């Protein structure tokens, strides 16, 4: 039985605030810098009477131990209710809303402060808003951790080895990937990229990931890439999923025959790189976005796998970047990176990420960065 303050139906519960509870007549506001990318993600710094310094120096108010940040990089201060930022002759500059600053510059409410790969946002908030934001951050962090927990651990030994690196552009992203043995001789590999970013895309991404992890597609031979794509296409119609769709690359490696069968749906090619890195072969079939065209018959193709070759499967956020001059880069500018040699102390996916970061303009990448490397011994 419901109380006067509540009403129920099967799905909805509405609580009404008790009007006898006094509300604060006047809320106190504060100014905050929130880390939205880089070291200390989610950290909320209060701007008070003392200036706040940011840099590599351990005496800084916010220490960012990163090579693209100077020892004393910038200073943020609150003056007469306004927030200003000053660059302290840093090597790589300080940016406000994408523009490099000179001298003391106003940092308006909601503006973005960038130092190398680190991004902070100025927020003017009441205590209540801060508490709500912190609660939302905790929820998003839990969602992010759940998504990451579904990704398989790297395989560091054996005939098929794996490495990967993923950086969501928002706190949670719409990319996911996986791999697993289907039986003793077959190894499944896939990557999905759901349209958009954020929690909506992440929810769909996790749904698809769980279907694939549990092989929960009725009547599907998971050794047949075209069949997997066709049945996912039927299960995840965009009309049934808030108009969202996804791209996908799916392959199955037969270790006895050293053969890879693969299919793609609205996804750019994966690339097979020879052991000596002189050959970079695109692996792609023509297929529409998953969930968009009903009853589409997907194609698949096959290729032989030479010893020492590696398969690179990645999302479009890896190469659709703007460079430091504001030019839009694409796949053709990215592909030469695949021929470059390894870097000590970084796996192949991390090396690619570092190379992309060096090409990209400062600040977060525009899209999720997901990179999977499969090495065939």
């Amino acid at each position: 039985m419901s109380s006067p303050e509540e009403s129920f139906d099967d799905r909805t519960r509405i609580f009404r605030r008790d009007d006898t509870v006094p509300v604060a007549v006047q809320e106190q506001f504060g100014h905050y810098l929130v880390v939205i990318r880089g070291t200390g993600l989610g950290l909320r710094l209060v701007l008070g009477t003392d200036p706040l310094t940011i840099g590599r120096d351990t005496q800084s108010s916010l220490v960012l131990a990163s090579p693209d940040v100077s020892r004393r990089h910038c200073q943020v201060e609150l003056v007469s209710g306004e927030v200003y930022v000053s660059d302290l002759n840093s090597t790589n500059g300080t940016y406000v809303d994408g523009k490099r600053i000179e001298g003391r510059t106003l940092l308006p409410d909601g503006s973005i402060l960038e130092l190398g790969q680190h991004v902070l946002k100025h927020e003017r908030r009441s205590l209540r808003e801060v508490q709500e934001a912190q609660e939302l951050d905790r929820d998003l962090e839990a969602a992010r951790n759940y998504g990451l927990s579904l990704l398989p651990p790297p395989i560091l030994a054996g005939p098929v080895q794996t490495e990967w690196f993923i950086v969501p552009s928002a706190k949670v992203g719409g990319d996911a990937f996986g791999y697993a043995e289907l039986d003793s001789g077959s190894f499944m590999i896939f990557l999905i990229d759901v349209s958009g970013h954020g929690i909506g895309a992440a929810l769909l991404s996790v749904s698809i990931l769980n279907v694939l992890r549990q092989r929960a597609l009725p009547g599907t031979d998971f050794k047949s890439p075209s069949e997997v794509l066709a049945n996912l296409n039927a299960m995840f119609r965009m009309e049934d999923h808030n108009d969202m769709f996804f791209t996908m690359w799916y392959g199955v490696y037969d270790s006895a025959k050293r053969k890879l069968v693969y299919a793609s749906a609205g996804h750019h090619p994966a690339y097979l790189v020879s052991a000596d890195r002189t050959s970079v072969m695109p692996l792609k079939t023509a297929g529409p976005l998953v969930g968009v065209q009903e009853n589409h018959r997907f194609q698949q193709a096959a290729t032989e796998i030479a010893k020492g070759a590696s398969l690179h499967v990645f999302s479009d956020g890896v190469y659709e970047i703007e460079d430091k001059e504001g030019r839009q880069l694409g796949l053709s500018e990215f592909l030469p990176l695949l021929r470059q040699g390894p870097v000590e102390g970084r796996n192949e996916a991390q090396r690619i990420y570092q190379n992309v970061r060096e090409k990209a303009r400062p600040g977060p990448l525009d899209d999720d960065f997901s990179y999977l490397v499969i090495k065939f011994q």
Partner: protein
Amino acid sequence: MDIQVTLYEEIARVKLRGRLDSPGVDQIASKFTASVVPDGRNTVVDLSEVNFIASMGLRLFISIAKSLKRQNARLILFAPQTQVSEVFNTVLLHDLVPIVADEAEAVRFAAV
């Protein structure tokens, strides 16, 4: 992102300028949809000044094309730049939405 919508006879002409990424789509989606979907107008879209398209841009075109189709109307895109055209080819967008070289061809398509 900028949008201009002009109506003549039974056709809506939409001119887009800028990046069709998530922020860009947020800026124009409501106006675009509200201008063409309720009346079920045949719509031609000039993409000559769109230099980038992300998945949210594709989603906008696909959603509008499907909505118009339910009303026996069509969405036709024309003059995409090379990089945008490559994305359309990767996702086989032409299976759902006609993509032609110029406005005259797009208008002819709309009239069929």
